């Protein structure tokens, strides 16, 4: 992956000045490149990675295996996008193996997620079956561990 993209991926809030210094490129060039990516949809947004278990908010997350009937012309895409447009849905992946779509859904409580599956997801034409698995705890998300591995135990000065 492009070095600038990698840096943004590990820290989307890095300043233009630092990016410029680290990559040895002028600030203007970096800004222009990022603008281009934003325009072309390569960069689709910037978010904080939040350890939700450390917040007050209650929530429930489920991974749902969905089997669907592919459609002539669109394959899985139309139904996948239709599912993906629901705000409750965090991510949708087309999978190889025993089911077709893996859908991550987040809701305030068990009932809202259950009702989403019952009322919205399972009733979409073309959806053959769903299997819902609730998550119990998050250890790592988006490449970030939810607890520190260890603090820095290095000597403060060493040769």
């Amino acid at each position: 992956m492009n070095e600038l993209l990698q840096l943004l991926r590990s820290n989307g809030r890095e300043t233009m000045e630092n990016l410029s210094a680290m990559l040895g490129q002028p600030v203007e060039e970096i800004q222009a490149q990022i603008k281009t990516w934003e325009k072309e949809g390569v960069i689709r947004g910037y978010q904080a990675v939040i350890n939700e278990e450390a917040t007050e908010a209650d929530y429930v997350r489920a991974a749902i295996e969905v089997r669907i009937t592919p459609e002539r012309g669109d394959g899985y895409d139309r139904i996948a996008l239709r599912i993906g447009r629901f705000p409750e849905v965090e991510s949708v992946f087309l999978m190889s193996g025993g089911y077709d779509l893996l859908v991550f859904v987040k809701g305030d409580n068990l009932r809202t997620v259950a009702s989403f599956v019952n009322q919205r997801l399972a009733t979409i034409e073309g959806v053959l079956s769903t299997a819902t698995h609730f998550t119990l705890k998050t250890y790592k998300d988006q490449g970030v561990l939810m607890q520190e591995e260890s603090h820095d135990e290095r000597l403060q000065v060493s040769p």
Partner: protein
Amino acid sequence: MTNDSKYPHDFVAPHLHNIPRSGIRDFFEIVSTRKDVISLGIGEPDFITPWHIRESSIYALNRGATSYTANLGLLELRKAISDYVQRRFDVNYDPASEIMITVGVSEALDLAIRALISPGDEVLYHEPCYVSYAPVIAFAHGKPVAVETKAEDDFRLSIDALEAKVTPRTRVLMLNFPTNPTGAVLTQQDVEDIAAFAVRHNLVVITDEIYSELTYEAKRVSIAAVPGMRERTIFLNGFSKAWAMTGFRIGFSCAPPALTEAMMKLHQYTMLCAPILAQKAALEALVNGDDAVTHMRNTYRQRRNLMVKGLQMAGLQCHLPQGAFYAFPYVGHLGLSSHDFAMRFLEEQNVACVPGSAFGACGEGFIRCAYATSTEHIEIAMARLQTFTTSL
């Protein structure tokens, strides 16, 4: 001659009295009394050893790998090192007779010196340099002879400087490129010239290339690969820096059979073998560690750029370090010695760096700033440096 003294001090062998305490240790003791210091003084990676390497060591422990190994080290690891050195440095060493696993490069360096010199022999080494070189030579009753490198040469080693210091008693030339603390690297022309110098004076070369994986834009070169040098070179390398494995204490030496055999004698009667769990981890590092090394190398390069820019903003001159993870800027024009600069910077801004004088007399006027730390810390440290230099 009898020693009638009852003072413990007088029981210590005289040649140890002449070796000063490391300047780094003194400085460490001052730094360790302070809270929330941002340290640019740490000579080791801030990365934790990549998980797959740690995991392989845990797996080995689970499987009961708790025994001694062959004195030279696990053959499988020596074979992997042979492949690695061939692939990265284009020199071929026989795993059966020319490669030995050691407890870090530090042990290998000690073995090499003791295997080569007799009391009174002279050893050339370049300064500013890693703190252990002169003491290790003195422990073996050799005479350390420092050869100065200069900022205007980007701290590369010049033949003129070498010629000025070589004598009929010189036996060994020690090299460490990329260099701790300067980040200097040699060019292909440099290593060829130095090789010719070594042949001319019939010297053995000990080359400590622990930082070679952390070479940035420059082409990586090794004197061991220069035609005719293999027979008179002890090539040292290890896993501490590039694979972030300092605490595993694992390194290796490559040298012709006669030299390896001599070093092995010392190793077998003093260390016996390197710890087996560290050897297992090192094997995993060589077999599957390339991606992790590339990632860390790229990260260090980005941080180096950030730091060098910060140093320039603070009005300090600094050559662009091409290897290792240290910047070595000049502060001599600010009217403070290296030591005083580092002390006042610590006291006034709570940032630790190491006075250049800790790395040899010619390091005076410089400070060593390690960029093996987070970009946030580099940013804060450089902002404070600017405040500090402006106040002087």
